[in-house]
């Protein structure tokens, strides 16, 4: 995926006057980059006996790994689940616009759709490196159609499916080729789910539990079979009950395979999850929390009425409702807003809040060696933030890809 040059001749860039997130702490260190990767300056000094070719003063800002959004249904008027004439352009538009939110990699998400849509759309969303054109595409997140009828939420009932006949073959028949797929959300109470989970995991696809009425026992078996993620915790699942905590109970389950961390997505827009619920989850299992936007096409459209497909949507600040009603129709909080809200609601450290949007999604996808951190050798995808965690600039492979407008004179 990475085609950056690692030639020793590539210029060395030193980002100075900053605090970098490394090893779970904000360190007062310079960030060195070469050939699109984070460089070890001590090695450069003693082995290659070289200094930086260019220094950039970061004005005392925080440098965090670029944010990774593993659940985005669309944005800026684009709906990823729609088989438009040019799916690629829609992806590209969103990929470019989310750079302003500090997102450097994402998983375009398709909601429950008929097989024709998957067959048409999936091949048009290849895995792609990020750059000045936009955030990188890590693979598609398929949310549905193998989910619970009762907990389908806004997913269209007509297209829900089960795989009880042919298990994995049903999955393949529905989706078509799985080359571009990274995450699949399914309900583990569906018959033969363990076969499907095992088969998907064997293909390197992350299986997530969501839109489900599974009890804790069923959820635990699913994790033992390979599931590693929970899709938007609390939403579209049974509520926590003290005698059967359901999927939520996975956060403190003692039945998980040893050494395995269960990750869970949370929409921290201040609307879809009560801050107290956010705090309970975070305190129970801080290492597994993954911030997601679960953004819908209304993201980024600004206040007012918008027509999105068959829907009329009214946007007011961070709230998107079906026009003329108070019915929420999806999240429209950008990732950096979610991070700030998460920080404020949980009172966690800045480092924790940043890791929830970078390191944890990278770990979920097994990419932590190259993404989600500023360790030596990792891809130089990072965000420059001020002390209030507002994005000042975004870098991919060490190149500036977005910058905040300077305040006027």
């Amino acid at each position, binding site marked *: 995926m990475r085609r950056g040059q690692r030639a020793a001749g590539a210029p060395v860039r030193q980002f100075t006057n900053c605090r970098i997130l490394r090893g779970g702490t904000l360190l007062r260190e310079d960030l060195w980059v070469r050939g699109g990767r984070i460089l070890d300056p*001590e090695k450069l*000094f*003693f082995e*290659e006996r*070289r200094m930086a070719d260019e220094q950039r003063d970061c004005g005392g800002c925080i440098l965090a790994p670029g944010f990774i959004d593993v659940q985005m249904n669309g944005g800026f008027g684009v709906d990823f689940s729609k088989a438009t004439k040019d799916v690629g352009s829609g992806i590209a538009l969103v990929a470019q616009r989310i750079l302003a939110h500090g997102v450097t990699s994402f998983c375009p998400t398709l909601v429950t759709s008929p097989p024709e849509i998957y067959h048409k759309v999936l091949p048009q969303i290849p895995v792609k490196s990020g750059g000045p054109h936009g955030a990188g595409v890590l693979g598609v997140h398929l949310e549905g159609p193998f989910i619970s009828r009762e907990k389908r939420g806004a997913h269209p009932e007509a297209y829900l499916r089960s795989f009880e006949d042919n298990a994995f073959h049903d999955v393949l028949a529905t989706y078509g080729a799985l080359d571009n797929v990274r995450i699949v959300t399914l309900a583990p109470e569906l018959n033969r789910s363990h076969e499907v989970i095992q088969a998907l995991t064997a293909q390197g696809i992350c299986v997530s539990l969501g839109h489900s009425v599974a009890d804790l026992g069923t959820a635990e078996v699913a994790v033992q079979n390979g599931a590693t993620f929970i899709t938007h915790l609390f939403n579209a699942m049974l509520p926590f009950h003290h005698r059967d905590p359901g999927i939520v109970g996975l956060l403190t389950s003692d039945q998980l395979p040893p050494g395995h961390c269960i990750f869970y997505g949370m929409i921290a827009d201040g609307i879809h999850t009560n801050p107290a619920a956010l705090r309970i989850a975070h305190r129970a299992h801080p290492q597994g929390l993954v911030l997601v936007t679960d953004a819908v096409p209304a993201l980024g459209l600004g206040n007012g009425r918008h027509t999105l497909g068959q829907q009329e949507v009214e946007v007011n600040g961070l709230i998107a409702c079906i026009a003329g009603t108070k019915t929420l129709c999806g999240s429209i909080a950008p990732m950096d807003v979610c991070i700030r809200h998460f920080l404020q609601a949980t009172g966690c450290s800045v480092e924790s809040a940043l890791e929830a949007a970078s390191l944890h999604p990278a770990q979920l996808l097994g990419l932590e060696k190259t993404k989600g951190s500023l360790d030596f050798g990792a891809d130089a995808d990072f965000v420059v933030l001020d002390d209030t965690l507002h994005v000042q600039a975004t870098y991919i492979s060490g190149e500036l890809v977005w910058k905040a407008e300077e305040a006027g004179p």
Partner: protein
Amino acid sequence: MRLVILDNYDLASEWAAKYICNCIVKFKPGQDRYFSLGLPTGSTPLGCYKKLIEYYKSGNLSFKYVKTFNMDEYVGLPRNHPESYHSYMWNNFFKHVDIDPNNAHILDGNAEDLQAECDAFEQKIKEAGGIDLFVGGIGPDGHIAFNEPGSSLVSRTRLKTLAMDTILANAKYFDGDLSKVPTMALTVGVGTVMDAREVMILITGAHKAFALYKAIEEGINHMWTVSAFQQHPRTIFVCDEDATLELKVKTVKYFKASCFLIMIELMHVQVHNV
């Protein structure tokens, strides 16, 4: 010998840093004229390094035309081990200033042929025209660099086995586990440091007081190798009050009085805003 006594560690560090800064600035280093500086490691010079970095950052001092030669390095410790002297120098000094990596010389404790590495180091010092100012520290057993008690006072850069005192003193940097502490090191010799045109020894803390006493009030003795500098034409010992605790009141009073002369000397080379 000059003995400069400051009230506390911070003032001693600042004095030493100003002295080094003034030496470099007065020398007027340039493309064909490098200033050669010998450097120590350990906890004593940390304050001094911090001040030097401050002077660089405020634009008063540049290391662009300075060559540095460190005193020693452990044998067998990976270069990027957090306790190696390469790591120490990178984290506490080199990464903060504008020194050219080609001019920062540290012995390689992982060289294939350790004695050849030592000989090459001596050769590099020779090629640099000798050392203008060698800054050093003193161990509790009176050693300079790793010239442990019993080292020849005319020794050159070589491989040394570390004394038990030193290994015990270093254990705190290796999780208190004696088995993890290196037992050998490459070190400049007493003779190597004696060759420098000027020597500055930093000594702070009560735990160094006895060693300072042995070094300057007793005779020259290979059991207290720092005592060799009694025979160097230009040596300064910079210390804090605590380090003088084992000295005679007479010695301390004498040197405190003669400090004025050094201050006047320094005033001729004022560095702006320093």
